């Protein structure tokens, strides 16, 4: 269930038009008509994209009678950013361990240049 929600957010953002819609909604709320204007597609197609974003929790629509502007739920996007940041930190931890390995190689070679490397002797 939870994984479903996560993948809905991810797959909602996998489409370039929907990412564009999100980017435009980040500037401010807009109606479907306003959002559809710059695209060479039908209003229905844009509505369909918005429905996907809505289902993923990325966009909400106010009940406000006719206008019903679309609103970006920025917190959901923030979560995405946090997930990416966490991924970055995982990589950072990995490279922190690599730093340790590299420090070990340096000690192994003393203060010599690493050109002592065996294989082809092409080291610098």
């Amino acid at each position, binding site marked *: 269930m*939870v*994984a479903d*929600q*996560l*993948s809905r*957010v*991810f*797959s909602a*953002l*996998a*489409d*370039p038009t929907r*990412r564009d819609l999100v980017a435009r909604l980040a500037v401010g709320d807009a109606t479907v008509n306003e959002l559809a204007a710059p695209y060479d597609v039908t209003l229905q197609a844009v509505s369909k994209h918005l429905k996907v974003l809505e289902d993923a*929790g990325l966009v*909400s629509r106010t009940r406000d009678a006719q206008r019903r502007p679309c609103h970006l*739920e920025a*917190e*959901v996007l923030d*979560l995405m950013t*946090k*997930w*990416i940041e*966490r*991924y*970055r930190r*995982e*990589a*950072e*931890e*990995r*490279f922190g*361990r*690599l*730093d*340790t*390995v*590299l*420090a070990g*190689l*340096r000690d192994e*070679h003393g203060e010599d*240049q*690493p*050109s002592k*490397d065996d*294989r*082809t002797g*092409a*080291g*610098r």
Partner: protein
Amino acid sequence: MSTSTTRNQTSIELGDTVPTVTITREFDAPVAHLFRAWTEGDLVARWLGPRSQTMHMERYDCTTGGAWRWWSSGEDGVEHHFYGSFHEVRRNDRIVQTFSYEGFPDSVSLETATFEDLGEGRSRVVTVSLVDSFEHRDAFVASGMEHGVVEGYEKLDELLGTL
């Protein structure tokens, strides 16, 4: 909470038009050492696997046409198996390889690591993972955080509950 201010920061970029993940990092080590740490299986085993998991290197023949296979296991006893082949290995310069996770067998990514000599005993590596779809790329990014992602899920649950 604050982001790292160390000199050797890891940066990540997700492609907009192509499903890629690009990771860049500099090291206080000559490029030849960096390349060794990337190509010798016993050295790779010391840093590559996920934290809090034990890495088991089964095969690591980092040569053009070679192959690799390793698996990790955690305290929960769950094992994750990964494998791929080395398409091209160019000393101190470039490694092109494939990457597959057995839990997701139909998805294969192409990984290119480019090594750069920065002089003064420093070097840089840029890895680009080209995944076969945006969906898989994003799932890949999310799965990399599986140890902390439960918390994220819970927050998302709460958040989605309020919408």
